[in-house]
């Protein structure tokens, strides 16, 4: 069943068209990365789906419920982590979580267990009795996760979940998101591509308020799989660009110092014959690698297409 469906959603703020007819759907389970450059309409979409904003036109459903007309019912099934989550700073972390549980009418005993589990899992158990006002940005982000998950939501919206974290925190939180995938559908909006590559199974790429790509990670890689080989040669070698371009299965060569980036027209042929062809030019092969394009290459390619 579709967890989210969005049909021709538009949103205008005065003269500014934040969303120009955006449509996509998200299946239950797994993790979807919602990508796009700044101003692509990611946050606006999330705000509509969570009931904070209303669309100018179009339809959206969350877990089969109308995201606009039935927003009160929708809210008990979702979790939401804002880009910079804010809390009542005079409360302690634990107090805020228990209070959040109260809003969901979760029984006190269950709430205590659940909040302990989340606080420990997110590494802020030791800070639970401290006022949120004294938390660092990273700790607030972790508490933001905890409050979004206190009700065991069927769907959780994460708006730039790891951008405020240091590398260690980022690593921990990404692991945490990976564990979540089994229990809930994760809809994560970000522009950090490597994070999406790590945890998401599907990607939706938006640009200028429209969806430009909607696909699974594997399909996306294959579609845009213009395979690339990188080789490094020895310092005494002459420039072999011309020799490489003469090969029938090579479509392009870029030279940066001793590094050559070679794109292939015929991957299968290149794989078998390229190493030998290089040796025949008389160059000394220092390193050789074949790589699939990463999401960043694809992203730049897709978003750059004007």
């Amino acid at each position, binding site marked *: 069943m579709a967890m989210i469906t969005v049909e021709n959603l538009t949103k205008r703020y005065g003269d500014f068209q934040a969303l120009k007819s955006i449509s996509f759907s998200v299946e239950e389970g797994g993790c979807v990365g919602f990508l796009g450059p700044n101003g692509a309409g990611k946050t606006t979409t999330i*705000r509509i789906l969570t009931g904070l904003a209303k669309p100018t036109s179009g339809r959206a459903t969350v877990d089969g419920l109308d995201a606009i007309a039935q927003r009160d019912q929708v*809210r008990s099934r979702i979790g*939401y982590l804002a880009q910079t989550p804010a809390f009542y700073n*005079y409360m302690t972390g634990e107090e805020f979580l228990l209070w959040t549980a109260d809003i969901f009418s979760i029984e006190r005993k269950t709430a205590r267990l659940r909040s302990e589990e989340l606080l420990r899992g997110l590494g802020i158990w030791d800070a639970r009795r401290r006022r949120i006002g004294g938390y660092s940005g990273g700790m607030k982000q972790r508490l933001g996760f905890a409050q979004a998950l206190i009700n065991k939501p069927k769907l959780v919206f994460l708006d730039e979940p790891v951008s405020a974290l240091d590398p260690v925190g980022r690593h921990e939180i990404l692991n945490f998101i990976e564990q979540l995938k089994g229990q809930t559908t994760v809809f994560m909006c970000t522009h950090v591509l490597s994070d999406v590559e790590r945890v998401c199974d599907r990607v939706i790429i938006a640009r200028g308020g429209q969806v430009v790509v909607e696909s699974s990670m594997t399909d996306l890689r294959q579609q845009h799989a213009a395979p690339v080989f990188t080789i490094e040669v020895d310092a005494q070698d002459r420039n072999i660009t011309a020799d490489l371009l003469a090969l029938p299965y090579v479509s392009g060569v870029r030279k940066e110092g001793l590094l050559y980036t070679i794109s292939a027209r015929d991957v299968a042929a290149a794989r078998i014959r390229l190493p030998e062809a290089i040796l025949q030019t008389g160059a000394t092969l220092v390193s050789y690698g074949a790589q699939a394009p990463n999401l960043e290459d694809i992203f730049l390619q897709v978003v750059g297409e004007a």
Partner: protein
Amino acid sequence: MNLWAMLRKELRELVSSYKLLFVPLTFALLGIMQPVTMKMLPQIMKTASNLPKGAVIQIPTPPPGEVMAGVLGAYSQIPLMVLVLTMMGAIAAERASGVAATVLTKPVGRAGYFAAKAIAYSLLVTVSLLVGFAGSAYYTGVLIGPVDWQNVAVAGLLYLPYLLLVVAATLCFSAFMPSQVAAGGTSIVTMMLLGFVPKYLGDFIASLYPGALTASATAVLIGNPSEIAKPLVGVLVLALAFFIGGWMALERQEI
């Protein structure tokens, strides 16, 4: 129930932000100032002015009822400002900080969110008025003369709807206005305008407006009761209109 959870949070906030302490304290201090200054007035005049030696100042001490009426007069100035200042951020500041988005994506209806604040601040003004007015009446009794407690109670009950109107108007503008400063400014201007403009809008409106209600509260204290029902209904309806208006504004808003 989540309205109860919201209300509990609002009450907790009144305590931890010391609003529950300093608002009643303002009401008490500025109220008690009235009997104290009335009592000390001759002495103050004597020390403050450069009157020639031997000048006799005779200021009759006003009756207790009039002193208490002065307390209500004092409340419509600084304490009113303090009230507006404490409430103007109730919604606007939560929206600006982003905590409103955290809360309103949970199963708290905007109605519940608004109602919890309205109830909590209504309690705050009730407590403040009770503490302040009772304290003032007590000191009037000590310093000036015996106070008719029954009149004080009736006058307090008549003044309370006026303070509820302040709560309603400020919350309404806090929901409606983009920033808390704008909300505070509009609330103060609105209360000022409501204080005298309706007087000139015909006899019917003049009998309903907030100024008429404070006038009847004053009249009760002086022992000269006047029309009560009309201004009472008028002010309560106006307060209700502001509450509903604020809630509607919030309901339509994008957080």
